């Protein structure tokens, strides 16, 4: 199923902007401020998601992928940091300009988020039915009975056995995978147009991961929601995403169709990531990327990846590369001075 297929599923009552993506993040900059100075957690990231599309955002811990997601929903605590530049345009409106009240209407209703920790993302002292119904009641002025009915529907949707009985169970009575299903049910309760899933399967064991991912894909096809899938697991990306954004040190370093990315990675960092995934063959040594992620406290003049890059030269250390289209007819962006060399090698 292609992205355009799913895009047509959006309700016709909505003002359709031809060719305009559902969400477009333009040059987003989210900085953290503390006594020691400024941390450039997200430093000029742009990405877009079409209606019904699945976009993967990959990168190692601390590369700014979660902060990007939090910035879209404006969930970065104001004491810690804020988005200092750029735009987040969703359905024609810049979310960064909205009031907190307008933002609340969007959160959970138009854009829903699934967090990494299914163990702690549910309040332990409230029943899951109550918590899902609460999400419905916030956005739809539903009666308690209607909200409960909807909760039952979505629990059924995420394939929790005996949903009717489990409605009145507490989170501790569910296993990790089941709890993540509950979180997904909660996120889907209001039919969001965009689902941001921040490492939804990281805390689950592998067999359960596969089940949850399959479920997410199935539900996506059913509801037509676009998904922004944040992960560090390239296997998950390969299975689920249509397009991939690779982030490094708060910047986007490569963006491509999922097949292009895996077949012809144009950025050395992407290559490194792909090389460090264990493949079926046993016995071979796993390659790792040498060096450390640079500190985001100090400004990085050149390419952020240069100190770890086997292709880097003086120019790379001095001048930051811009995102450029890689040779080929399909959209494929990479921020690397040496991308032709990388592709050729």
């Amino acid at each position, binding site marked *: 199923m292609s992205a355009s297929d799913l895009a047509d599923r959006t309700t016709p009552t909505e003002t359709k902007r031809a060719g305009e993506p559902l969400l477009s993040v333009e040059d987003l900059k989210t900085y953290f401020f503390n006594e020691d100075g400024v941390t450039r957690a997200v430093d000029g990231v742009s990405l877009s998601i079409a209606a019904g599309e699945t976009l993967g955002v990959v990168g190692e811990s601390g590369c700014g992928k979660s902060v990007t997601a939090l910035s879209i929903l404006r*969930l970065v605590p104001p004491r810690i940091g804020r988005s200092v530049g750029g735009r987040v345009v969703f359905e024609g409106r810049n979310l960064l300009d909205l009031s907190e009240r307008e933002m609340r209407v969007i*959160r*959970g209703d138009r854009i*829903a*988020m699934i967090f990494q*920790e299914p163990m702690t993302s*549910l*309040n332990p002292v409230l029943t899951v039915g109550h918590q899902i119904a609460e999400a419905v009641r*916030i956005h739809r002025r539903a009666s308690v009975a209607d909200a409960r009915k909807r909760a039952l529907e979505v629990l059924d949707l995420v394939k929790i056995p005996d949903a009717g009985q489990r409605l009145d169970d507490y989170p501790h009575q569910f296993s990790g995978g089941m709890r993540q299903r509950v979180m997904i049910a909660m996120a889907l309760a209001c039919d969001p147009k965009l689902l941001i899933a921040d490492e939804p399967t990281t805390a689950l064991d592998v067999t359960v991961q596969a089940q949850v991912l399959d479920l997410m894909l199935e539900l996506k096809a059913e509801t037509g929601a676009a998904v922004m899938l944040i992960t560090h697991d390239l296997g998950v990306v390969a299975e689920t995403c249509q397009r991939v954004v690779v982030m490094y040190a708060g910047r986007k370093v490569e963006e491509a169709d999922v097949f292009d990315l895996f077949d012809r990675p144009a950025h050395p960092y992407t290559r490194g990531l792909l090389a460090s995934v264990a493949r079926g063959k046993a016995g071979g040594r796993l390659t790792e990327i040498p060096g450390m992620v640079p500190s985001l406290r100090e400004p990085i003049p050149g390419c952020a990846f240069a100190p770890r890059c086997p292709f880097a030269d003086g120019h790379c250390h001095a001048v930051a590369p811009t995102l450029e289209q890689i040779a080929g007819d399909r959209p494929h962006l990479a921020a690397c001075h040496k991308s032709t060399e990388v592709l050729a090698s």
Partner: protein
Amino acid sequence: MAEITGGPSTTSDEASAPTRGSQAWRFVRRNPTLVFGLVILLIMCVMAIFAPLIAADPFSMKPVQRLRAPSDAFWFGTDQLGRDVFARTIWGARVSLAVGISVAVFSVLVGLVIGLFAGTVWWVEAVVMRFMDGLMAIPAILLAIAMVSLFGASVMIVIIAIVIPEVPRVVRLVRSVVLSTREQPYVEAAIAGGAPWWKILIRHILPPTIPPLIVQATYICASAILVEAALSFLGAGTPPEIPTWGNMIAADRIYLSRAPWCIFYPGVALALVVLAVNLVGDGLRDRLDPRIARRM
């Protein structure tokens, strides 16, 4: 129950479902301090509420019968003005319990509201917490003496004067619970779900503050009863015409060697109430603190 052992189904029912009586007994066995404290407190409350029915007039003076030792007519003896010590001790429970309970309720309510705001609105926190630190530096008794001399002696003033220095303790407690609760992922998830702040406050942040507050309230109650007695004793609290334990001890302390019962009985009553309240507090803490409760 012995008659219904005929059918096999009834016997199994009886074995699996403990009777109400045995459940109650098990509760008593597992929480002896809580039950013991509650029983004493309950008796005290009943006596305070029904004081007019149980005890004679605490004000009637019989100068002929001054400083009589305990007897059939006067169970606890009489004081320097020939007033019935038993009646006055019972009536004294009214003021003590009223002050203790209202101080606990008011300081918890005020502290809860301030603590919730201090824990959630970051700029309120900085201002309020410094103010609370300042309040904590004022000794309760000195503040009470100052307020009584400013506004005149009355039970209400005594209550307010004890509430003020207790509030910061409650605020600190509430704030510490709020600070740890608001970092919970389910709070972030609720915000991401579009819940308005007041809903998050009531649904997610308020509930975990309640158990420690209940425990704290009992300790506040006990200390308020003691402070009220101390203030009465110093003559800076409840007006002397109202029978309170502190007033009784203060008025008759010069007759300690001649008529020790005048002081002994209100003193015992005071100690007993404070002990009972503290036992209830300890018992509740054992029940409500999840770390301890799980072990039981």
